[in-house]
């Protein structure tokens, strides 16, 4: 059974890496819509899957955050990816299954997964 004291070991490990994570402004931002529409459409498992993938691959240059209603509720869950110096990419009707390929293709290899974007859906 887990106890909160285990967090100390995680803390000690993270302390040694903390400078890496804060370095530079070349950070990729991944934003999940978490308003009523997003939550009802299944944004929570999508956000969870994103955190799991980012953690598993140890992507220090990626920040995952939440936002409100993006304005196209019928296409929720929506995930936006901001790569510095590039145009924003909007992924729609997201599922935990789509997350893995977006993380490996887009966040790691820099190739937009066109078939999941709002451009392909509309």
């Amino acid at each position, binding site marked *: *059974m*887990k106890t*909160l*004291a*285990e*967090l*100390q070991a*995680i*803390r000690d490990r*993270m*302390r040694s890496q*903390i400078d890496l994570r804060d370095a530079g402004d070349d950070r990729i931002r991944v934003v999940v819509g*978490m*308003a*009523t*529409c997003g*939550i*009802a459409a299944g944004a*929570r*498992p999508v*956000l*969870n899957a994103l*955190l*799991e993938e*980012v*953690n598993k691959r140890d992507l220090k240059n990626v920040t*995952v*955050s*939440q936002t*409100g*209603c993006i*304005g196209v509720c019928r296409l929720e869950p929506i995930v936006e990816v901001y790569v510095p110096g590039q145009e924003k990419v909007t992924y729609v009707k997201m599922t935990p299954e789509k997350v893995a390929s977006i993380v490996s293709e887009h966040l790691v290899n820099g190739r937009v997964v066109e078939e999941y974007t709002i451009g392909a859906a509309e």
Partner: protein
Amino acid sequence: MKEIALYILDIAQNSITANASVLEVALSETAEAIAFVIADNGKGMSPQLLAQVSDPFTTTRTTRKMGLGIPLLRMAVEQTGGSLTIESTEGVGTTVTARFCAGHIDCPPVGDMAGTITLLLQGAPQLELHYTRTADENSFQLTTEEIRAQLGPEISLAEPEIILWLREYLQEQEMLLREHKGMKA
């Protein structure tokens, strides 16, 4: 929404938008009722806004003229014969209390509370959150003060590793609670 936990996630976001620094989330479960309380110290609502807040065509946002969070919750609660009360004082905070009748066929399951609590923290890592989960006589509690006492000040609660660890921790606590109560998952 398919789970009570999702309503809690949705309604608690309103507290964060209202600039709350302290948030109490309590969920209790008996054979008769599943009830939750979300209490914040955010900016509160005026009596006028409070009177209209269950109307889907009332919202404070400026982009669109509707807001569905509270109306959806009210409908879900009242469908089971339960009740929703919202108390709010401007400059002091807001308390939302929802009570579902557990025996009613339209009562949603509690759902993934571990996911709800951890994603609230992921979205607002500076928040002081007090979570209490009760099932009959058994309960457990988690506060961000306890977490920070172990983590120290420099590590954000939003770090994926921390969030995922906390989710597993809460899932375990939830399972123990259910074993005690002999409830179905």
